[in-house]
């Protein structure tokens, strides 16, 4: 695992609660907002299960700590999106809170229902980008969520030891988290 320069993190009183909101104007219309919200809720909960940080949705986009938007092409932050595949999303280090997804990707919440060869799993990318929002940079560990690339139709949503160790160095451990549960989960998925 690695960090951004200066190892920035969200500095608030513990236990830390961060709010998040979805842009109403910069979004996609072929996945329902409730499905998008469910995806992000699951993604946030993966991180909050390992660190003492809570995430709460708010309707007040401008005031939210984490602001989630879908954009196409040049959207004013100096890092234009490039259309189908290529760059899928990007986000900003703490305590900026902007999480941007390329609206021109074929985002999927269920590959059984989306047959496109270029479909990209929204939950995998959401989980990865939340890692950046919290302060993790890219890792060299291919199996980890924070590895920079993701193939179309691939799913990688479970945090690996590398992700967990990295984020816990920034925020400490959730008192209810046990590393053994992570290893058990990894074993069961390997044998599954």
């Amino acid at each position, binding site marked *: 695992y690695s960090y*951004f320069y*200066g190892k920035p993190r969200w500095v608030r009183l513990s236990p830390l609660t961060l709010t998040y909101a979805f842009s109403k104007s910069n979004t996609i219309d072929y996945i329902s907002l409730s499905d998008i919200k469910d995806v992000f809720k699951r993604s946030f909960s993966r991180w909050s299960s390992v660190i003492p940080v809570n995430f709460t949705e708010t309707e007040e986009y401008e005031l939210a700590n984490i602001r989630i938007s879908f954009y196409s092409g040049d959207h004013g932050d100096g890092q234009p999106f490039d*259309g189908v*595949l290529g760059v*899928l999303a*990007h986000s900003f280090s703490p305590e900026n809170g902007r999480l941007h997804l390329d609206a021109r990707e*074929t985002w999927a919440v269920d590959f059984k229902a989306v047959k496109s060869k270029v479909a*990209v799993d929204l939950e995998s990318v959401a989980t990865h980008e939340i890692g950046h929002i919290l302060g993790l940079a890219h890792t060299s560990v291919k199996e980890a969520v924070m590895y920079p*690339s993701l193939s179309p139709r691939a799913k990688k949503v479970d945090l690996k030891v590398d992700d967990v160790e990295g984020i816990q160095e920034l925020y400490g451990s959730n008192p209810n988290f046990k590393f053994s549960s992570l290893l058990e989960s990894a074993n069961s998925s390997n044998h599954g």
Partner: protein
Amino acid sequence: RIIPDSVTVITDNSTHNTTWHDFARFLDIEKGSHVSGMSELKKYLNRFGYLSVLNKNFTDVFDSEMQSAVVLYQQKLGLPVTGKLDSDTISTIMSPRCGVSDKEHKIHTTKR
């Protein structure tokens, strides 16, 4: 025949993004080679934090700087370190990815 309740069929428009797809033609190109379009690969390596140059007029030559960038890329992405544009490296470069630079000191914020 059982028909699923809901299937979203979206046109495969992968041809809309051909920039990285074209990198396939650089497979096995070695240091010292001059290949038209190599500058695009240099721009990619620059964008993601592997090739830092003051002058961004990238040439199409696979030079020493480019080789160092490839080595760095292979190290960072957990690939076999060969310094060459082998199949593992090219296929990883062509994969869709996060837009955040792999350089660990990349901060995009502007303090107001």
